[in-house]
């Protein structure tokens, strides 16, 4: 059963590292155009799952479809349709803002003309026009993160995967970053974002909370708060995690 509105379908996804089970039978769907939050403590298996969805890592077992393509046999098609921003910083320190944009746009196969126009509008949107020829190592962390996000969607993907994109960033920059995410979602890009900041969960259309490699809850933030009788997502998370600890 594949719903046409689902852009990612995951059934019984398992990933083991030796005896350690990082992802324990995950099953979920992501709808086209939504901002899908993937929440959990450090080591809950968020990054493992996102790396599998991006085609960076093989699942041990399970069925995964991204943008309508099979994760085992249609990796190349998947890669043309997704963007990815890792928690590890992914721009080149020794290249300028413009050179980074040109490089990534180039290896996605954009034409020179497209590269010029997209680089221009991207730098304008981020107010980075004056920093065009500055090296990445010389610009502030917050700018880097916003730039990394914009570079990750330079080729207009259907889905963008963000792995803890706001790690180590001040609250104002985080707010600005989320504005960028909303903008991308408005342009029709499905956003799959992992985070351990529970306040960010409130910004998502739906969230999954992972505890110890399993999905503990999946719904919209209002429903989850009601269900667990919590004032905010932080309480929801603590309740879920505590159940696990006590069990």
């Amino acid at each position, binding site marked *: 059963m594949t719903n046409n509105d689902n852009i990612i379908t995951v059934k019984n996804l398992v990933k083991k590292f030796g005896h350690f089970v990082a992802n324990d039978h995950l099953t979920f769907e992501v709808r086209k155009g939504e901002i899908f939050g993937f929440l959990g403590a450090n080591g809950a298996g968020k990054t493992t799952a996102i790396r599998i969805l*991006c*085609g*960076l*890592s*093989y699942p041990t077992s399970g069925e995964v479809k991204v943008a309508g393509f099979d994760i085992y046999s249609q*990796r*190349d098609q998947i*890669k*043309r349709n*997704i*963007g*990815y921003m*890792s928690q*590890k*910083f*992914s*721009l*080149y*320190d*020794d*290249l300028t803002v413009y*050179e980074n944009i*040109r*490089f*990534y746009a*180039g*290896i*996605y*196969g954009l034409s020179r003309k497209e590269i010029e126009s997209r680089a221009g509008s991207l730098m304008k949107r981020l107010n980075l026009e004056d920093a065009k020829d500055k090296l990445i190592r010389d610009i502030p962390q917050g700018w880097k993160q916003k730039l990394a996000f914009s570079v*990750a969607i330079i080729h207009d993907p259907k889905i963008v995967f963000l792995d803890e994109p706001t790690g180590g960033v001040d609250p104002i920059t985080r707010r600005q970053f989320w504005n960028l995410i909303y903008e991308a979602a408005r342009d029709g890009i499905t956003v799959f974002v992992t985070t351990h900041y529970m306040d960010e969960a409130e910004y998502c259309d739906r969230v999954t909370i992972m505890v110890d490699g399993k999905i503990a809850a999946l719904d919209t933030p209002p429903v989850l708060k009601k269900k667990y009788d919590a004032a905010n997502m932080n309480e929801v998370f603590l309740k879920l995690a505590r159940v696990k600890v006590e069990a």
Partner: protein
Amino acid sequence: MRTVLFIIQKEFIQVFRNRMMMPIIFVVPIIQLLILVHAATFEMKNIRFAVIDLDMSTTSRKMVGKFQGSPFFLLAHTSFSDKEAETEMKKGTVDMILHIPYGFEKKLVKENAAGVQVVINAINGASAGLINAYTMMIIMDFNREILVDWLSPVMLSSTKNIRISPSYWYNPKLNYKTYMVPGILVLLVTIIGLLLSGMNIVREKEIGTIEQINVTPIRKVQFIAGKLLPFWIIALFELAFGLTIGKLLFNIPIIGNLWLIFLSAGVYLFVILGFGLLVSTMTNTQQQSMLVSFFFMVIFILMSGLFTSIESMPVWAQNLDRVNPIAYFIRIMRMVMLKGSGFHDIRNSFFPLVAYAVIIISFAIRRYRKVS
């Protein structure tokens, strides 16, 4: 193809933005050629020696004078005691002791034969052999001189002699530099190529950008090609630069075809760069990659025939050298530069390199994994 160009462009920007690169590219070859070519020589001059002349005769003094007159020997110590001379040898101030026994001249006159003793420091076997050869040469020379002095010309002419007149081909002046420069040039491009490529992919792993590339639809071949070509161009430029310096500073002969040199270098560099990239894909940090590259580089260089000839190695080592790309390329360089060998002459070294390049690059492409 366009994708490859974007990678090449990026690599060039990164290489030349690195402040260490310019000195490495331009200063290293000059220093290597200037220092190594002069330092790595087998010629021995000024061998310091001690004399124990117990005879104190005209003949014995003449003999010592003969040694002193030679450019190879330098009298560093004279004594009448074996002990003293031995102490000097132990201290390392002399490498040879010439012992002329009491009654040397008398014996020579009376019995037409007399002996001297030569003690040589043979810690380094090769140089001991040389010292021995030089000593023999001088004593034989001396021997002929006393024959001329003591015998009548008639008798001298009746002594039968086989005269050897060697003619040295390809390096008529036996210039050691001529022999060393091609090999040093090989070292140069090897070190530059291996270090640049060996550190490269692993560096992207360390900073995390490799993930960002792996989520793009880029093909493995495109990626490896984009990584290979910039260093290939830099290393070939390096060779051209080194050849120019060799020509200008050492006036080394380049008898063979320059294009053949660069054709072979091009193939050889694919082997070296492929090797570097292979190491780079298999390691996780730049340190690991450096260690592995160095390990192989040192073995390959020591066994390459640069300093010691491969023909004098044991058979198993010679067999091992069949997988040593440096050995092939040094052979090619010496043959083409010094002998003017053509393609036909070097084909037995050339084709193995081609095969090597194909194998190692396909291996590197295979080993580079986009998915873990």
